[in-house]
């Protein structure tokens, strides 16, 4: 293992395997691979308290975002509303469960898991939980973080409100409600949460013990 410590300032590009010497960066700068331009690392900018606050805010706004209708149409006197969850179920009920599952995972399940996962990680770090159960939980959450982040597609869903509203306005009146507002706020909070979150920095807490 002592051999590796000599190499501690060297990192490898994950896209092209180039060996690059690490150096201190000013904040808001990002080091790119000199050969293939892949982002290598940036200055740790990962405030535990800030993330805790955003996790709590996201959890609170998650409830109205998923319980209140996000779109409402008025057509010849009849009113139809839908929540994000109902929209996924509606496709599923028509027999297209692949589509329904994809929508459900990307817009409801993955964001919920993402918030809970980051909240657990932040609490473990903040409360300094050293028991092996918490450490194992922490490691396995970090291992799955990339996948969950990739499956969260709130930004695309927000755009899809607009596209659907324009398409439906062709033959009916379309209204946005508090649900739309809450869902958009959920997207904004998670966007900032993911900007604050730094996976490499979270892994460094494992290195310390």
């Amino acid at each position, binding site marked *: 293992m002592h051999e*590796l410590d000599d190499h501690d300032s060297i990192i490898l590009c994950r*896209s092209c395997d180039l*060996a690059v010497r690490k150096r201190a960066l000013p904040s808001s700068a990002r*080091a790119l691979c000199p050969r293939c331009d892949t982002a290598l690392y940036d200055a740790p900018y990962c405030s535990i308290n800030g993330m805790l606050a955003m996790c709590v805010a996201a959890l609170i706004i998650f409830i109205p975002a998923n319980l209140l209708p996000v779109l409402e149409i008025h057509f010849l006197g009849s009113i139809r509303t839908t929540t994000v969850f109902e929209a996924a179920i509606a*496709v599923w009920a028509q027999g297209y469960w692949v589509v329904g599952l994809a929508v459900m995972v990307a817009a409801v399940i993955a964001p919920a898991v993402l918030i809970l996962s980051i909240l657990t990680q932040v609490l473990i770090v903040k409360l300094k939980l050293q028991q092996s159960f918490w450490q194992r939980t922490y490691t396995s959450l970090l291992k799955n973080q990339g996948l969950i982040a990739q499956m969260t597609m709130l930004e*695309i869903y927000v755009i*899809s409100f607009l*596209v659907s509203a*324009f398409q439906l306005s062709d033959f009916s009146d379309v209204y946005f409600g508090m649900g739309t507002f809450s869902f958009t706020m959920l997207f904004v909070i998670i966007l900032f949460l993911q900007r604050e979150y730094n996976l490499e920095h979270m892994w460094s807490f494992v290195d310390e013990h």
Partner: protein
Amino acid sequence: MSTKHTCEQVDNEVSTTVNHTDTAPVHIQGNQMGLCLCPVCKKLNLTTNSNCRRCYSKLATRNYASVQQSWALLVTATILLVLANVYPITLLTNRGVVTNDTIFSGISHLVQTGMFPIAIIVFTASILVPWLKIFGLATYLAAISFNLPISKRKLMVGFHVIEWIGRWSMLDLFVISLTVALVNMGQLLDAKPAPAATAFALVILLTQLAAKVLDTRLLWDRLEKT
């Protein structure tokens, strides 16, 4: 941005400290130094170790099978994408008249009603992005498999663009699910999904997997002579 600036300095430091005997800046693969990254947590490890020293995942220097896996996923995705474009994606009943809409006819309908910005968004997300992704990945894989003389740096930039933009194809599925949930007034006005929706969902899943599974370092192992 200041990003470019830092990367050059990183490059200089590497070429001076790693290879003392060689004065010219030589790009050294981590593999040649006996180092590799953990495939799960990206921690630096010795290639002689069998498990990561941080997260205990199994280490592998390269995933040579990933090129084949990626090709297989890509071919399947291409077949499904053809089906997704040929078959109808939604079934609209308007006052008893049933119309089948394919992805393309949906967009041309948007153009006819004068909603150009929305038509451009839907065209980009449902037609341009999936095809670009498949051609882009095919070029990338062909460059590895057949050693094509294409600039590796450009391929890599293209690959990162594909990785990022691929998610946006989900837009069409979200719109379909919202429409199906809202428009359900029997013979008067009713929208239902049609077979192409499943094919399209699978195209997104398979192309994302094809990009994720591929070990891009295989391209760079064959170092350029120039």
